[in-house]
């Protein structure tokens, strides 16, 4: 089974990574949001630094909030962003 997921970034996460979104293949053993973060941390120093401070990030799987421990399941989109500041 060849799973993949779209990762999208917002606000300073997007700016510091320099990308809006990226597509990643989910190899065997990648089951949670945390697993994806670990995997993405290999991509660049910026990825590693940002994803190390997980308490500064928020996550949404297919537009529903999730936690690093949340299972990816069949989600097609993982959004990674700072705490929201609208209103």
């Amino acid at each position, binding site marked *: 089974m060849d799973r993949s997921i779209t990762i999208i970034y917002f606000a300073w996460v997007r700016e510091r990574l320099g990308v809006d979104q990226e597509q990643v293949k989910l190899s065997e053993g990648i089951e949670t949001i945390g697993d994806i973060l670990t995997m993405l941390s290999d991509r660049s120093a910026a990825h590693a630094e940002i994803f190390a401070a997980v308490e500064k990030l928020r996550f949404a799987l297919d537009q529903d909030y999730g936690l690093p421990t949340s299972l990816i399941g069949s989600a097609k989109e993982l959004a990674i962003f700072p705490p929201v*500041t609208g209103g």
Partner: protein
Amino acid sequence: MIRIEVGTDDFDIGDESLKVAGQGGGAIASFVGQVRDDGNLLSLELEHYPAMTQKALREIAETALSDWPLHAVTIIHRVGKLSVGENIVLVVTGSDHRKAAIESCSFIMDKLKTVAPFWKKETRADGETKWIEERASDVAASEKWGK
């Protein structure tokens, strides 16, 4: 019953209040948030997560409708570049009872601030830009509702 708008267009508080009032009840509460002049703020850039924004706002409105006796809820949130003094957000609630209208309006704003996927980047008069950070007081205000 529920009206959600997210976009660059401005809104008219009077028009939106009338629309809510037209759906019944004699008590209409509203809240408007604007870009506040703090001395050297020039503008805000409002970014959002389009696929999630409508859904998040709708869920907040639905919670309000199930927890208070409301006839109508309107939530309008602008995105893009907004200068000092411009409108950012409008919430209007209509009910038979003023307590329900005012409380639910307050609830919607508190939740919107901590749940809806919007981010503000400020531009100062000297050209400096900075992403606004989450405020502990907003988190506390949201959590006090226990829902």
